[in-house]
Each structure stands twice: as C-alpha cells, then as structure tokens.
C-alpha cells in the first residue's frame, strides 16, 4: 500500500469518525487535516506553568531554523512545519502528546524539548514507534549513556551532565588553588538533575583536587520560595566556596535572599546556571564576581555567526535566546542536513545519517559539533566558565573547557558505570 493510499483510507476513516462523533455532540480531536504536503515535526514541550520559558524559547529557536529551511525551498518543495504541544511539565502527558503527535497529527519527526523527566517518557514512546527523535533539553547523562535506556532512533543535542561536571571541576579546582579556597559546600535543588549534577561535580572535584574539604550540603526543593534555612545552614558552615546548580527563578530568589545575609562577602559562589541571559537580566544589582558556566552567551564562542544568531533571535522575539534555544537550533542543523542527505523522513534512515555526523555550527567549540555515533549524543559544543560583571556582556571572558580531557574522563566514567 502506498503512502497516499493509506492516507486516503485513513482520511475516509477519519471523516466517518468525525461524522459519528459530531452527531453525538462531541468534536473529536483526532481529525487530521490534509496531511499530504508539509513534513510535520512534533515538539512535545512545556509551555505553561513555571518553566514555560523552556518551551517558548525552544520553539522560537526551532521556528527560526524552520523558516530558513522553508525559504530555501524545503525538501524538494515539502516544507517543514512545527507542531508544539504543551505537556504542562507532566511526564505522562509528554508521553501521551508524543503518541498523539505521531499517531494523530501525522508527525514524522519528534523534537523532544522536554525537561528530563519528560524526555525519559518520550524515549519510551520512541522505542515503540521508532520515528526519529532529537532530545534538545534533557542534560541527564543516562538518557544517552545508559545502553538500557538508549534507543536507536533517538539522539540528543543538549549539553550533558557528565561533560559539565568535568569542565566545572577542572575550572573550579584551578580557581580554588589560585585563591586558596579550601572549604566547599553545595546548594542544589533536590531533584534528579540537581542531585546528578552536584554529585558528579563533587566526584571530579575530589579526584582533581583531593586537598579540598567538603563541609556540608544544602538541598532546597525545586521551585522553593524561601531559602532562609538553607542560607543559614551555609552561613553556619562558613565555606570559602559554594557550588550550586540552582537555575532560573530559583537561582534569582536564592541570590536575592543570600544578598541580604551578605553571604557572598565570605563565600565565593560557583553557580553553573548563572550565565544565561534571562537569569542575568532578571537579577537586580547582579553581584560581580560570580563564577558561572556559559549556558548561552552571544559572546562565547566569540565568532560573528554566534553573535549574529543571538541578535537575530532578539530582533525577532524581543529577548535574547536561552540555553535551551541554541540546543534546539543545533538539533535543526543536524535534522535539516540529514533530511537533505537521505531525502526521506524514515526514522531509521535519518538515524543512520545523523549517527556520527559532524556539522558546522556557531555553537561548536571549534566551529563544529559532532553527533558521536556510539551513544548518539553531541560532543564538541562550546562550554566554559567565567566571572560575572553587572552589565553587558555580563561574562566578559570565558575560559573554554578542554574537550580532549572531557572525552578521556567521560570514557573512564562510562566504564565505571558499566555503560561501556
């Protein structure tokens, strides 16, 4: 049966379905519109609630790339179309939306712009339905590293926890050595990402710099409003340095509340998620001298393509892009290159093309990013640390991470975890 035939039969079925249900007074949602022309990309993501910014800034970035691809003629005239759907941050909704996008809306490709819990749920759907899927926002290492969780047609273009940990520990360790920061503490949100990120950071910190002493840890809840008890706990332990992977609004609240305790007069803060524009601009009186890793900065990598991309995004949507934006943009680079190459939307064929692919990208450490074949996740993207100042460019100089060292330690970590 050819595709058109199947489409036609399905459509007849759907028309019948629609008729029957309208008669009973209900509008059935699965009446697919004519599905001949555009290639539909389903985007399960979060568009409401506290992290709506994730979905909005992801979708914006995808839209820019889709427009570009369509303006260049699409795939033999077939245009790309984005269908983003809100999972409201619930994993079961993410799974259900992904199924609906594929089975109901006829999406042939999935870009999963979900947070980690949602991404794992999407992964299980992809395992069953076998379309091409690119995870763009989940940084949890096991999603791609653990062979039990990995799926042949699923990829990731987000940064990865283990990479972050290695770079962070190398950088923080050097600063600690130079400034004599001996006693350390952590304050991270108590959920999978926070625990994962922090324990990996500590592991490498201890390995690189065994002389450092850990004097405690604080675990506020995700989206906690009041950090007072955590701050007093930190004050009590008097660490010279504090590592935190709090992010977005939580990080801002934490900074505001620590500020009135004068916490950073005695403690140097290493906040991995600080250097993202929404966070940098939201803090009133951004304290100078916070160490942070680059999430998205249009000045890092310092190449004209990156600055132009950031400005173009801002011109179109009024805000600077987020960390999530570039991760989605990168997914589209892989996807469109593969589409042109195999000239099909078949999941397995696209996956074969993307596996091991190296693309030119403004977000690459050396101008390119590679989709590593063995675990279908990206390497070679820009990653580095620097210190904040209170106005643009916010993080004037960024020390890039060393990918050679990242890859060595990552290989060792995988062996230890039984992943490789």
């Amino acid at each position, binding site marked *: 049966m050819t595709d058109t035939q199947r489409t036609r039969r*399905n459509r007849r079925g759907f028309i019948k*379905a629609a008729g029957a249900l309208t008669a009973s007074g*209900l*509008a059935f949602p*699965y009446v697919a519109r004519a599905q001949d022309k555009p290639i539909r990309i389903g985007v399960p993501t979060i568009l*409401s609630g506290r992290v709506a910014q994730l979905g909005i800034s992801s979708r914006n970035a995808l839209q820019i790339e889709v427009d570009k691809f369509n303006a260049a003629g699409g795939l033999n005239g077939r245009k790309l179309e984005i269908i983003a759907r809100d999972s409201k941050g619930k994993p*079961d909704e993410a799974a259900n939306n992904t199924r609906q996008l594929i089975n109901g809306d006829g999406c042939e490709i999935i870009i999963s712009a979900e947070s980690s819990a949602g991404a794992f749920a999407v992964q299980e759907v992809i395992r069953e339905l076998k379309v091409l899927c690119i995870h763009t926002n989940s940084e949890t290492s096991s999603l791609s590293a653990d062979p039990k969780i990995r799926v042949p047609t699923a990829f990731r273009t987000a940064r990865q926890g283990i990479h972050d940990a290695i770079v962070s520990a190398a950088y923080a360790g050097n600063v600690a050595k130079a400034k004599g920061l001996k006693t350390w503490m952590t304050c991270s949100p108590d*959920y*999978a990402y926070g*625990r994962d990120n922090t324990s990996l950071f500590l592991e490498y910190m201890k390995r690189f710099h065994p002389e450092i002493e850990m004097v405690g840890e604080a675990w506020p809840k995700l989206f906690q409003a009041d950090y007072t008890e955590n701050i007093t706990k930190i004050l009590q332990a008097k660490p010279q340095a504090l590592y935190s992977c709090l992010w977005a609004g939580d990080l801002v609240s934490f900074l505001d509340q620590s500020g009135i305790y004068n916490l950073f007069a005695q403690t140097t803060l290493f906040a991995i998620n600080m250097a993202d524009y929404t966070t940098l601009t939201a803090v009133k009186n951004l304290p100078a001298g916070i160490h942070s890793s680059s999430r998205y900065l249009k000045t890092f990598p310092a190449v004209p393509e990156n600055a132009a991309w950031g400005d173009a995004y801002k011109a179109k949507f009024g805000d600077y892009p987020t960390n999530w934006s570039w991760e989605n943009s990168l997914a589209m680079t892989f996807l469109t290159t593969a589409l042109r190459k195999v000239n099909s939307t078949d999941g397995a064929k696209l996956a074969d093309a993307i596996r091991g692919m190296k693309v030119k990208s403004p977000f690459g450490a050396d101008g390119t990013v590679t989709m590593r074949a063995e675990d279908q996740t990206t390497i070679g993207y820009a990653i580095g640390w620097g210190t904040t100042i209170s106005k643009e460019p916010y993080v004037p100089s960024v020390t890039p991470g060393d990918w050679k060292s990242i890859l060595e330690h990552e290989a060792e970590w995988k062996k230890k975890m039984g992943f490789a």
Partner: protein
Amino acid sequence: MRSTVWLDIVIAAAAMAVLLLLPLVFPGKAFSDFMIRLSAFAIFATSLNLLVGYTGLVSFGHGLFYGLGAYSFALMMQKLGTSIPVAFIATVGVSAAVATVVGAICIRLKEIYFSFLTLAFQMLLHSVIIAWTPLTGGDQGLTGGVPRPPFLGIRLDDPQHLYIFCSAVLVVSLYIMWHLVRSPFGYTMRMIRDNPRRAEFLGVRVWRVRLLAFVVAGVFGSIGGLLMSLFVSSAYPDFAYWTVSGEAVFMILMGGISVFFGPLVGAVMLLLLNDVVTRVTEHYSLMLGIIILCFALGLRKGLLGFVLWAWERRRAGAQ
C-alpha cells in the same frame, strides 16, 4: 433479581463487543491510545465516586491508590520479573491492604477532616516516592520501561492487544462496581450518605460499610493507575500528586455525581477537552478554568446528570 443480573451481563457483553468493533470505525492508533487512557481514568474516577457520590466520603487523596497501583505494578514487573497476571493480582492485594489501614484511620474523622487526612496520606506517599530514589527513580520516575511479557497468548506490548485488554478491564471493573451500588450493600452506602445517624439506629455498622467502600474504591483506583503504567510503560510521582485526585473530582462533577456513568462521561469530556484545547491554544489553563467555572456555577448536575434530569422532566411533562 436474577433476570436483571442476566440483563446486566448481556449489556456488559454488548458493551465489550462495541468496544471491540470501534477500532474498525476509527482505525487510527490515536483512537486506541485515547481509549486506553480513558479506561484508566474512567475506572479511577468511577471508583472515587463510590466514596464521594455513593457513601458521602469526600476523599481528596484518592490519587494515593492511583500512584500505588502504578508503582507497585511497574516495580513488580521491573524488579521481580513476575508475569502480568501475578503482578496484577499482587497489586490488587497490596492496595487492598493499604486501603484497609489508611481507611481505618481516615473514616474515624468527620467531613472536611476526612478529606484533609486522605490528602495528607496521599502526599505522604508522594514524598516517599520522591525521596526513595534508589527504588523509585525519584522525580524522574521509573526509567527503562515496564516489561510486558506475553501471557495466555496476550501480548500487551502490541497496541491492539493492550487496547483489548484495557477495554476488558474497563468493562469488568464497571460491571462489578455497578453491581455493588445496586446491591443491598450499595443501598446501605447511600443510606449512610444521606443520614448516617439513622443508619446507625437501624443497626448498620456504619464504620464497617464505610471501610469496605474505601477498600473497594482503593482497589479499583489502583487498577486505574496500573493501566496507566502499562500505557506509558513507566510510573511517575505525578501519579500520586494531589492534582490527580483533583482531576478525578472534575471528571465526577463534569459528568454527574449522582449518576453511575457520570464519571465515565466526565472522563471522556476532560480527556477530549485536554486534547482539543492543548491542540488549539497555549492558554489551556485559561480555557479549562472558564469551563470549570461554568460547571461549578451553572451545570452543577454534570452533563450526564443534566441530560437524564431533563429527559425525566420531559417524560413527566408528557404524562
């Protein structure tokens, strides 16, 4: 009495036949996905209505059993590698035991305090799921999928088989609950709802009836969660969050609290609403909020309740 039992069985068989034929009318996978989810929510909401609508016990924490069913089933399949029927029966057993203990504590309390306590128990389970990461995966949920080995020639990793399985569980569950509410026991439940003191005077052991209703509702609530874990091939802490209980309450109120099939109709409505509205607008909350207000302020009988009421009235008018 006997003839109505037979009639009920015939109706249930007919309903099952219709469910089996429906995929011929709606061939898309989207339809069977919808029906699988519906079966989970419909059983869950109907079981809650045994408490809320029939016994007058307003539980805010029924999601306890939804989460419990999903997690105990999925964990047994993942960690112990049991067969599906064994895990199914064990899940029912676990929920019955938990429901007996929790129910015995909760039903001592009156009205709103009963509601609060059920909510507290549910949130306690949620906190445990979140904190016990090595077993439950914490907020990430269970990763790696729930294995679905074949049994008796039924392969639940095949969507068609899963559809038939869920339909059968839906029909059987509703059939049992339908029988329960129409039995003398169901009559006692309603008597307690309307006037517990009078029931006591008549020699009814009120607490025993309440507890039994709580346990039955808990067991079926957990079956709802079990089906959902089969569908998403995982279990998430959200299943035990109070929003799940809230959704079941909306389903009951949207369909009609005083009609047995009200929660089923409500489940269809809320799921369709969810799918349609998220499809057309980002402002799902706004739309859902307005619709909820319409029901709360205007259509308090619920849709099915209203239709039946209007029909009765017309019939009465005609006579």
